[in-house]
Structure formats: structure tokens, C-alpha cells
């Protein structure tokens, strides 16, 4: 199989994921049509209910402190107070928090793309004696909760003098078993003949990986990068444990401390809701633009358990 053929296979895989199961343009009897409308309404109601907390967050952030404490609550603010958003933004270094989250998340994405693809490539297209053992290690890694080892990881990070540093935040998260699995799955679909052809042309494995293989599995890379970015932007428990310096807080930890200190437990709920709203905004915007790719992660991670 040559490269163009492999591209076609990859293309086919992509298409296979997207296509829907709707029927079109056939004659539909009345009873069936009514039941369709009923199901449609049911779906609309459930979707709105599930998205409602976001609406509630944004609109509560626009209310005055008096209004937010009214019962029954108002479903639309009596007056729009955008100032809550700017007050919240200015009363804690949220710009710094957001920069930290985005910077750390992007750095981790870059490192994971490199180490996960090298590992996945070695496991699928190179021969070595410990291959089985390595695959086993990664399989076990997939089954064991990482939170359970936070305590010794913390102690090790302390020994390495990496607590309270960007390096610690980035390096301690720079490998993901999920990412390795995902890329391994993608590499398994690419014919080994491509590697052999590359070797005949005198290309090194490194070259084959980055110039021949990587472009073929770019859709898997896209999924992996988006999922990693989301996970790391949202990460709270571990980054909070390993940083004491407020300047190093990621956005979730920053928001949580604003909730506890600045918000003083319920006294400034409009500002707290405003802060929550702008914390999730970057992710909802990302989701809006990349929802197809993000939801594709499901296809790929569902494939993980088949091999």
C-alpha cells in the first residue's frame, strides 16, 4: 500500500465516524409523524434542562445582590449589571490564572504529542524484546486511578525541588496513558509496509514517524490535543496540591479561592457566578468550534478496549 492509498483509508475512517442514521424524504404515516414530534419535544426539553445551569450561571452573574436573594428567583435579571463581571475580573488576578492554565495546558499538549507518538510508534512499528511488558505497563496504567498516588508523587516532586514551579506543573503531567493508547490505536491502522518502504529509502525511524506517519493520523492528533487541553485547563486537584504560590494558580484553583475568600461564602454571589461564567467561557467557545472533533474522542477511546 502506498501513501495515497493509506490516506484514502484514513479518510474513509473519518467519514465512517461522522455519518448519521437519519432517514430522508420517505413517506411517513401520521402516527409515526406524531411520535416523532413527541420525541423531538422530549429531546428539546432534556437538552434545555441539561444546558440550564450554564444559563443560570450567566444570568445570575448579571443580577444585583438584592435580586439574587429573592424567592422565587427571577428567570431574567431585572437590570443587566455587566459591572459584576468586571468587578469579579478585577478583584482577583483572573487574567494571570487564565494565562497559567492556558500556558501549562499548551506546554503539556506539546510534550504529550512528542512522547506519546514516539511511544505509540515504538509499540506498533518497531521490534524490541520488552514490547509486551511495556504494553502491559500502559494497560495497567489505564486501570489504576492516578489520584491514589498523589501523595507519593507529591513527595517525589518535593525531592526534585519542583513544587511551586511551572516546570513541576508541566513535567508531572507530561505523560498520559490515554494519549499513548489513543495514538497506538491510530498507528495500528497504518500499514507497516509504509515503514518498510521508508527504511528502504534510507529514512530513519524518527523521520518516518514525523514525515510519513504523523500526517496520516492527524485527525487522531487533533482529538488527542483537544482532550488533553480540556483536561489540563480544567485540572484542579493535583495543580492545587503542588502549588502554594498564588501566582502559579490555575484557573480552577483561582476560582475556588475567590469563591472561598473573595466571595466570602455567599455574600457576593453575583460576582461568584460571573467569575464561574468567564472561567468556563473559553472551553464552551472551544467546544462550539471543535465539537465534532471533541465528540470523536469517544469513537477512539471506545476502540481502546477492543484490542
Amino acid at each position: 500500500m502506498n501513501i495515497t492509498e493509506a490516506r484514502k483509508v484514513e479518510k474513509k475512517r473519518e467519514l465512517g465516524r461522522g455519518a448519521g442514521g437519519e432517514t430522508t424524504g420517505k413517506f411517513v404515516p401520521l402516527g409515526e409523524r406524531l411520535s416523532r414530534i413527541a420525541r423531538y419535544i422530549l429531546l428539546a426539553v432534556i437538552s434545555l434542562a441539561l444546558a440550564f445551569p450554564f444559563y443560570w450561571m450567566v444570568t445570575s452573574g448579571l443580577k444585583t445582590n438584592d435580586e439574587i436573594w429573592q424567592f422565587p428567583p427571577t428567570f431574567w435579571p431585572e437590570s443587566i449589571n455587566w459591572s459584576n463581571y468586571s468587578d469579579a475580573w478585577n478583584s482577583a488576578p483572573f487574567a494571570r490564572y487564565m494565562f497559567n492554565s492556558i500556558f501549562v495546558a499548551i506546554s503539556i499538549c506539546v510534550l504529550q504529542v512528542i512522547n506519546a507518538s514516539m511511544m505509540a510508534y515504538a509499540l506498533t512499528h518497531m521490534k524490541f524484546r520488552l514490547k509486551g511488558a511495556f504494553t502491559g505497563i500502559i494497560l495497567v496504567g489505564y486501570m489504576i486511578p492516578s489520584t491514589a498516588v498523589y501523595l507519593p508523587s507529591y513527595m517525589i516532586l518535593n525531592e526534585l525541588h519542583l513544587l511551586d514551579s511551572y516546570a513541576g506543573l508541566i513535567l508531572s503531567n507530561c505523560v498520559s496513558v490515554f494519549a499513548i493508547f489513543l495514538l497506538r490505536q491510530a498507528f495500528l491502522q497504518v500499514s507497516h509496509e509504509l515503514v518498510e518502504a521508508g527504511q528502504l529509502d534510507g529514512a530513519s525511524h524518527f523521520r518516518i514517524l514525523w514525515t510519513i506517519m504523523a500526517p496520516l493520523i492527524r485527525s487522531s492528533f487533533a482529538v488527542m490535543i483537544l482532550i488533553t487541553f480540556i483536561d489540563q485547563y480544567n485540572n484542579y486537584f493535583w495543580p492545587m496540591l503542588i502549588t502554594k504560590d498564588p501566582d502559579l494558580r490555575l484557573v480552577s484553583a483561582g476560582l475556588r479561592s475567590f469563591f472561598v475568600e473573595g466571595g466570602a461564602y455567599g455574600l457576593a454571589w453575583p460576582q461568584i457566578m460571573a467569575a464561574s461564567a468567564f472561567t468556563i467561557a473559553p472551553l464552551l467557545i472551544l467546544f462550539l468550534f471543535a465539537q465534532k472533533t471533541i465528540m470523536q474522542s469517544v469513537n477512539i477511546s471506545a476502540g481502546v478496549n477492543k484490542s
Partner: protein
Amino acid sequence: MRLKTFREGEAVLFTLPALIPLLIFWLGPLGYIVYLSFTEWDFMSPEKLFVGLENYTYLLTHADFYQALKVTLMFGLGTVIPIIVGGLALALLMNSKLRSTGIFRAMMFSPWVTPTVAVSIAWSWIFEPEVGLANLALGWFGISPLGWLQDPNWALVAVMIVTIWKSIGWSMVFYLVALRNLPADLMEAASIDGAGAWNKFRGITLPLISPTTLFLSIILTIQSLQAYDQINVMTQGGPAGSTRTLLYMYYQSAFETFNVGEASAIAVIIILICVLLSGLSFLLSRRLVHYS
């Protein structure tokens, strides 16, 4: 021979960028925590005191541990089952020959993308006992208001609701993929043979999507054992320990009361539970799960 060793060396070199951090931050700690669970230490004293099984016997003879175990179990069952059943129900509804459901799918999936801390804060406000939306909604059905996060009987339910809300759309998308991969000819043949919708669902759909169900149960169980963010924001394990899971107890004894040995013993127990459940589901999968 030399060439072969060289080639193997290159392969190992390829694995190192992932393997080294994996060993330092993952497998090393795994061995370390087993050792720590046999010691007594408080982060301060120069020596770690070897105490054998004392941490385990202490845990196993104290009610706090059993309370946390019970909360963990209830939280696990009370989130994994609704997320799986609800996700499947939504997927079936979505898959039934309806057009332009993309917007609904996106709305249901969106909670999964957003940071748990931020949405837990919003939910804390919804569960506010005096003016919260949750009690307003209960009022519409004539149910008297609840204390939610302040009531030991309901705090765990509230945390479960947030957890289910966060993942139900995610599990739905898994099932949508599985349902779309069902062989159309088999379903048609069953219809021609006169199988009713329920029989078709039980006899064909359910067995054919069982790999998805197994995968989701494993992943969701591991996730439920790791739940921390929503508990930390909404209840911090309280009131009266009613939302203190094993993981939360582990966190508190490690980083609040600095009882490293006891915390490690709890962590080892959590890991054992995970290994046990994974093994069990693997065995179960050979008997019950249908792989095509």
C-alpha cells in the same frame, strides 16, 4: 547481532520520553505508596517509622473507614448506573430516525467539557436551601424544601446529581456510536421475523452494545473512585462525613492531618478495589460481553 542490538536500542530510545516520566510520576509512586502504608510519618520527623500492618488494622477497626467505604459504594452505584442507563436512554431517543439533532447532542455533551470546579459552584447556588432553584423546582411538585448540601441525608444526592449531569451526555455519545454500528440487515431481519421493539432491544441491541456498556462501567467506576473536585467545592466531605469518600478521606489524612501512613493505606485499598473491579469485569466480559 550487533546491528540487531542497535535497532533494539533505538526502539527503547523511542519509548524513553514517555517511560521516564511514567516511572517517576506514576509507577515509582505506586511502589512507594505500598511501602509508605507500612510506616508512620508526618512530613516533619526525620525518620519514617516502620509499623507493619498497623495502619491497616487501625483502619479496619474504625467506623470512619467503614463510613467512607459506604459513601464510596453509594456514590459509585448512584452515579455509574444512572449515567449508563440514562446515556443509553438518551441515545435511543436520539437515534430514532430524527433529523437535525446535532444541537441537542452538543447541549447534552457540553457539561463534560466544562471545569468541574466552576460548574460545582453554580450548582451550589442552585442547591441553596433558601432561594435555590432546586427547592423551587421541588415546590412545583408540592415537595417541601430540602437542606441539600447542609443536610447529611441529601448532600451526597446533590453531589451525585452534579456528577451524573456532567457525564450523562458523554455516555450518550458513546452509545450513539455503538447504536450506529449495529448491523442494519440483522435489525431488519428481526423485524421481518415479527420481533417487537422490546424483544429486538433485549435480544439484539443490548448484547451487541455490551462492549460499550462494559467499557463505560469500568471507566465510570474508576472516575467515581477518583471524584474530588465536586466534593471539595460543594461539601468538603461533610456534613457529618456524609460525602466523605475513601479518596476524600485519603486526601484529608494526607494533607490536612499529615498522617502519611494511614493515608497511604487508604490509597492502597482504593487501588486494590480498582484492580479487583477491573479483573472482575474482565472475567465477566468473557462470559457476558459479545465481541463481534
